[in-house]
């Protein structure tokens, strides 16, 4: 069966071949998309600002389970556009009432899959934040629905379009690094421990904490969780590996001659922050590792993830990014430090490229990524950070965390996307959702009411 995307794609192609009048293309380009935002936090508003600035969106709805960011976002949208989108707590209600054509999903990771799937099923194109999801099965279902509905799905991996990443990738592909045998991706920061538990308190007024937890386990609220702090609570995200790791893993896979690794093994823990605490009297600490090393075994090279939340990286020039080790030297793909090639031969000089951001303070290239998303919709072509490669990149941190949990190596069949010979590990690719939510099913888009595994 031909998917709708293919139809659109072929359709456009055909008209181009037949010499579609330019004014028609022009007319299409100026179309305003009814746009809605789900998750009005820090990053969600960063994206919505780009959508407004690009001039192709009419903001019709804002959704959050917390009144405060919802109202602050409304205030800003009013200032920027002069119009007042309606506010929602329940994204399903918003999608049904507002019928947006474009939906931005910038909720915490455990809340990516359901809104994305619903939005696509109702016909919207989706811009969803990285990582695609929290568990593997969710991301698989998102990809499947994207293809079945033919909707354009851009994932917020702006490093796929950031100018120094693009030129760095060209440099890597030029062969100047020789044969590459090792990629090391890393994020280091400074910190001390042990982590003090944060007392359990009533959630802030106007926050629907039960809905915030949604399909993930409910846990007592503490101030460390929001905003943003949920990244280091494994019920809702996958720690630094899931948060930062996916960006650099995606850079590695963008370059990689192989689409997936064969083995995954993680070690690490919380030697500095101390054992996680969740105690009615003392409160909660985070529970994500402060130290983690994951080895991804590919056939032709090895990739390593390392993060540390202490000691910094004072002995090196870089504290974040990905090193590509080749026979001709070391290439560092970085963030604010651009990219640098350190040649093996002392006679050759270092090559360096500074970054160029659309937003200097947050160091991102969302302007370009958003424009690419709109262009991809207009032209019915895959966007640069399409759900398929983003899905593959998002799976690696999730596999890393499964290995981390079990303390053993996983054999991964990327073709069928299954963990081989380890039923316990395999069971962790999905998880039971909390009632009344249902884990997205892989069979077909109508079977989302089936019980979870």
């Amino acid at each position, binding site marked *: 069966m031909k998917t709708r995307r293919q139809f659109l794609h072929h359709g456009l192609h055909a008209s181009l071949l037949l010499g579609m009048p330019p004014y028609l293309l022009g007319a299409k380009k100026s179309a305003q998309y009814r746009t809605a935002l789900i998750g009005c936090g820090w990053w969600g508003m960063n994206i919505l600002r780009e959508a407004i600035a690009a001039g192709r969106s009419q903001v019709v709805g804002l959704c959050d389970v917390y009144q405060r960011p919802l109202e602050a976002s409304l205030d800003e949208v009013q200032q920027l556009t002069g119009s007042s989108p309606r506010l929602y707590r329940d994204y399903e209600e918003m999608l049904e009432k507002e019928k947006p054509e474009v939906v931005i999903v910038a909720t915490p990771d455990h809340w990516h899959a359901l809104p994305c799937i619903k939005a696509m099923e109702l016909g919207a194109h989706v811009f969803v934040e990285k990582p695609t999801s929290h568990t593997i099965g969710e991301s698989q279902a998102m990809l499947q629905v994207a293809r079945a509905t033919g909707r354009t799905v851009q994932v917020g991996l702006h490093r796929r379009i950031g100018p120094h990443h693009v030129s760095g990738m060209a440099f890597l592909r030029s062969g100047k690094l020789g044969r590459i045998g090792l990629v090391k991706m890393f994020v280091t920061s400074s910190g001390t421990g042990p982590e003090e538990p944060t007392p359990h308190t*009533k959630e802030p007024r106007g926050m629907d904490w039960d809905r915030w937890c949604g399909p993930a386990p409910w846990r007592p609220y503490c101030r460390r969780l929001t905003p943003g702090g949920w990244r280091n609570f494994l019920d809702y995200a996958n720690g630094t590996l899931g948060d930062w790791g996916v960006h650099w893993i995606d850079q590695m896979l963008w370059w990689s001659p192989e689409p997936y690794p064969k083995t995954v093994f993680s070690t690490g823990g919380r030697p500095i922050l101390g054992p996680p605490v969740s105690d009615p009297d003392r409160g909660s600490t985070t529970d994500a590792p402060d130290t983690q090393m994951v080895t991804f075994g590919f056939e032709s090279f090895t990739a390593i993830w390392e993060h540390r939340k202490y000691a910094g990286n004072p002995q090196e020039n870089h504290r974040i990014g990905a090193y590509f080790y080749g026979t001709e030297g070391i290439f560092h793909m970085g963030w604010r430090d651009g990219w640098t090639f350190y040649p093996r031969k002392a006679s050759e000089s270092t090559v360096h490229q500074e970054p160029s951001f659309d937003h200097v303070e947050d160091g991102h290239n969302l302007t370009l990524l958003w424009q690419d998303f709109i262009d991809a919709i207009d032209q019915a072509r895959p966007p640069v950070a399409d759900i398929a490669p983003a899905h593959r990149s998002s799976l690696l941190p999730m596999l890393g965390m499964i290995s981390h949990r079990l303390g053993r190596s996983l054999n991964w069949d990327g073709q069928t996307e299954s963990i081989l010979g380890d039923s316990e590990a395999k069971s962790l690719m999905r998880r039971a959702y909390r009632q009344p939510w249902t884990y997205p099913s892989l069979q077909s888009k109508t079977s989302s009411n089936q019980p979870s595994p």
Partner: protein
Amino acid sequence: MKLSSVCQSLLILTLFSDSTTLALDWPMFRGPDHDGISRETEWKKQWPESGPITLWEAQVGIGFSSVSVADGCALTLGHQDDQDTLYALDSLTGAVKWQHSYPSKLGAKFYEGGPGSTPTIDGGRVYSISKWGDLFCLEASTGKVIWQRQLEKEEGLTLPDWGFNGSPLILGDKLILNIGGAGMTLDKSSGKTLWLSNQEAGGYSTPLPFVMGNTQLIALSNETHFTGVEVETGTQRWEIKWPTRYGVNAADPIILGDEIWIGSGYGKGHGLFRIQGGEVSEIWTNRELRAQQNAPVLIKDHLYGFDGDGGSRAALKCIERSTGKVAWEADSFKYGALSAAGDHLIILSAQGELITAPASPSSFEPLSRAQILDGKCWIVPVLANGLLYARNSQGHLVCVDLRP
């Protein structure tokens, strides 16, 4: 000077708010006139290349508490080893007169944490509140606790995300706090609650007294509004909706006649409103002064203050009050804090450089500069009796001699 005469004069000042200065003390956050401006005019605005003399230094623990000064005593709060300490230092020598510690948490959420309010001195007593609602009334001469309360527990309050950071205000016999959605007052002599607006989280501003008609009001912020409240009854007379991304309305409002200036950071901006009866009307709003933590100072119809958030790019700006238009901006600053004395600005850059400059709408022309601190300096510098008190977030406090 005798303590009693100081408290009497302060009482008179707060009650009648007239400008007969007696002491050039700075008894609470934002100073005797609640506007960030000292009445001192004869102080050393210019110094030789070698910089002004640092009279003394002290280590007072982590926090963002500023300094208040009265009757030879400089007070501030800091956090160390699971406790907060209120320091009463000799304002001339820095010698510890007394100190008062109590168990507390650091509360380092996306920043260093530590206490954010500044103690208030009134009538020979010191009033001080912690991030978590520990409220103390102490004898200013000895540090003896007269009464104390744990407001969060006793009143069942919701803490704001970053805890209580507004400073206590004394008006007559009332102690007023930015606690609850629209403030609370206590009897200052006994600590008994007179009224509490509600149990919601308050904002981070310090209650600002003003008179409307014949009624004494306070203006303060909560997470989403600025509001005017009758001191006697707690009745809310007006409110201005002012939502910000993280619910942080921290900068104190400025009132001039029937106009009120308000502003906040995180991209929000600032605005001037007119209040007539209970009606609020907007005069202008814009994003030119996103005052994240500290309010600007208003001098001769111009506002001077920092636009931007701590830790990111920021600019010092001069803004015409009546129009909201930028008169000038100096963007070499990476955030900072300022106060003023007379018609001169006293600026502490985020990196600890002290800068003096005339407050002039035509241009920014620094008179003198001196590196007096390092680390993160987001806390307003305070001038009292010719001595300049400044501290960083790690608790390094310096007293610089600017006496003529």
